[in-house]
């Protein structure tokens, strides 16, 4: 993939640095430029800068010549500065999320019981999202494609962030995460790799499978929802949050996927699109149980002090994904949203 087009001072700083010749002078993205960022969770320039820095840890960019860019100390400084601001904003959003939930201690006798009950409770409250209902009943083919384009930023890298957590946890939780990831990665069949299923869906609609154009058109909130997974997965101290996020993500996926599947059928979209959502209704019903009971419960049985982080990660997932959904719906409502890419 090529570097995406920057869209403001922060992403320009990162892109310029990455384009600079190896060993040449580095234009360190100026952390003070962040003084201008009022709401990092929807700030496209901010989220794009962070997304590009994170991508160095995934597949990287064809037009970045410096093989050391991934661990460049100056880029690390920039990443840390962006992450601090991002994490602060996420924690703030979580603390502002209305919460009638009982205290963890009141939900069960052991940390595992408490966390299981908390996760089931918080994900049960969320019905099928407004986005899923819109896609089910009302979306035009163009709007459906614009949804796929928006989600491509995640689905073309589906499940990769959580793989970084495998070496960071142990015992039964590690085994359950490996089991879940094995399923996400096709269960031994390359053609069933979920990322590949999504790429096939895009392809069947004549849309590109190159990630860069999708990153360039994604809203700040969508980039934030993807960056959130990297923030949790690439910082070991946040491993509890990473697994709480995964649990909430999987537990709120199956029913919406069913709605989206019906929307795709209503619009008579190609089989590859149907196949993607069809696979996820069943898979995510399994993954939800694995993530809540297999991973999170086992993790806090092993490391009880992580229980609040698991809940934090789950709450952050619902809040940030909710925000990204609202922004998307607003875009459809005002009709200003770009139509399908590619």
């Amino acid at each position, binding site marked *: 993939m090529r570097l995406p087009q920057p869209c403001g001072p922060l992403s320009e700083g990162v892109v310029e640095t990455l384009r600079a010749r190896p060993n040449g002078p580095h234009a360190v993205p100026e952390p003070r430029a962040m003084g201008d960022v009022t709401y990092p969770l929807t700030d496209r320039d901010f989220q794009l800068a962070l997304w590009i820095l994170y991508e160095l840890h995934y597949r990287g960019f064809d037009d970045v010549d410096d093989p050391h860019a991934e661990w460049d100390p100056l880029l690390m400084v920039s990443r840390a500065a962006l992450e601090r601001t991002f994490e602060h904003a996420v924690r703030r959003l979580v603390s502002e999320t209305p919460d009638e939930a009982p205290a963890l201690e009141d939900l069960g006798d052991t940390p595992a019981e408490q966390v299981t009950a908390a996760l089931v409770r918080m994900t049960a409250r969320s019905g099928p999202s407004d986005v899923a209902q819109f896609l089910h009943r009302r979306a035009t083919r163009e709007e459906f494609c614009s949804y796929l384009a928006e989600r491509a930023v995640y689905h073309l890298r589906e499940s990769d962030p959580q793989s970084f957590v495998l070496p960071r946890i142990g015992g039964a939780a590690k085994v359950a995460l490996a089991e879940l990831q094995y*399923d996400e990665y096709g*269960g031994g069949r390359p053609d069933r790799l979920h990322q590949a299923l999504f790429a096939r869906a895009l392809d069947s609609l004549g849309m590109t499978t190159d990630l860069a154009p999708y990153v360039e058109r994604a809203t700040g909130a969508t980039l934030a929802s993807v960056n959130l997974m990297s923030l949790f997965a690439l910082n070991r101290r946040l491993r509890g949050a990473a697994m709480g996020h995964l649990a909430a993500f999987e537990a709120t996926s199956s*029913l919406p996927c069913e709605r989206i599947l019906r929307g795709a059928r209503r619009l008579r979209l190609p089989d590859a699109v149907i196949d993607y959502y069809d696979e996820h*209704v*069943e898979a995510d*019903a*399994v993954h*939800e*149980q*694995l993530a809540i009971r297999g991973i999170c419960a086992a993790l806090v049985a092993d490391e009880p002090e992580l229980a609040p982080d698991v809940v934090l990660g789950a709450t952050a997932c619902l809040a940030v994904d909710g925000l990204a959904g609202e922004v998307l719906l607003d875009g459809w409502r005002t009709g200003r949203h770009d139509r399908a890419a590619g």
Partner: protein
Amino acid sequence: MSNRRVVVTDCPGGPLLVRGADEVVGIDGTAAPVERAVVAVCRCGRSDRLPWCDDSHRDRRRKTKT
């Protein structure tokens, strides 16, 4: 696979997780082949994909059909 142990895990309020099975046979004798390492078998009877759980057990409201 050499390890042929079949394990069933209870998920209260939800499905049974089944590992290591080859097929799940319904009451009418239809065998559903197991195509992933772990499957979730519906226990609430509300799934549209019996014998598999499709998370309908979570949906407290009546299901809408298209």
